[in-house]
């Protein structure tokens, strides 16, 4: 991976972590569109408790850590978990350099050693 690409990804990651860390501080705590309509129309009367409602991160909180810091920690953990799952999945299913056919217009890479992960 080129340095330029690496720098961009690193910068993007910093932005994502800042957003996740600051989200709970700036976010509106009002119900969202669906929850508002559900409450107004009576849909919400049928709502059931979430089966995992007791989990340590439930409701974007961080068990044992109060307030804004807890929200920031929850957001950062969520970002890391999403990134690991997402990047893992996408690295797994991506076109490997060796099997690039060039059919989609992307240049097949001639870089040998990178396919060993």
């Amino acid at each position, binding site marked *: *991976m080129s340095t330029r690409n690496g720098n961009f990804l690193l910068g993007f990651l910093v932005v*994502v972590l800042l957003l*996740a860390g600051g989200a709970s501080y700036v*976010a509106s705590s009002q119900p969202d569109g669906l929850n508002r309509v559900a409450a107004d*129309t009576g849909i919400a009367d049928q709502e*059931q408790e979430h089966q995992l409602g007791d989990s340590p991160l439930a409701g974007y909180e961080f068990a044992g850590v109060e307030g804004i810091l807890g929200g920031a920690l929850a957001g950062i953990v969520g970002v890391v978990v999403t990134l690991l799952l997402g990047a893992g999945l996408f690295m797994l*299913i991506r076109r490997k350099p060796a099997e690039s056919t060039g059919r989609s217009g992307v240049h097949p890479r001639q870089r040998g050693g990178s396919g060993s992960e």
Partner: protein
Amino acid sequence: MHVPDGFINAPVSLAAGVVAAAGLAICLRGARRELDEKTAPLAGLVAAFVFAVQMINFPVGVGTSGHLMGGVLAAVLVGPYTGVLCVSVVLIVQALFFADGGLSALGVNIILMALVTTLAGYGTVLVVQRLLPNKRASAVPAAFVGALVSVPIAALAFVALYAVGGTADLPLAEVALAMFGVHVVIGIGEALITALTVGSVLTVRPDLVHAARRYEQELELRTAPAGS
């Protein structure tokens, strides 16, 4: 717009799960063509970005908020198949770790926020791109319009699912009107965030914006550096 358990009955939730699984299977195949060693890590970051921005509820009137869904944003950046997978990963993480979105409603939520937003919204992006000048900057207004329409369409898709499998007998026209109205406003927020993000990436790394690939010829002409 995360649907909790109990809004949609068990048979329709189950059917939605089957449809969502089929949709994800199609996207897993399609995403192979969109992902290479350069775009795969970016796609992971796009998923993380959608997770982070979804946490930021913005006010849309008295006592109501909205948040990004991210289907069009992800599709424009990394391609529609990969975009669906990005949002779906986010929804799965939210349901499993954050108690946001019911477990039995996971299929419903993947249909609404990943599949419907991407099909309707990215479809709109492609149409708008054909209508606008053949320049890479056109990707930004196209993404804006696509994001704008994706949210109310997803809201109406919820009403359609509720019409089939809603757990209460309510006046559907009233539900549809309320859902559509508030999500038109939320769609403006979705469109602004999407256009801002796409515009930023386009400025720094136009080669990383999937929806700007169609302008590659123009890119070739333009990238001759002035001073080297």
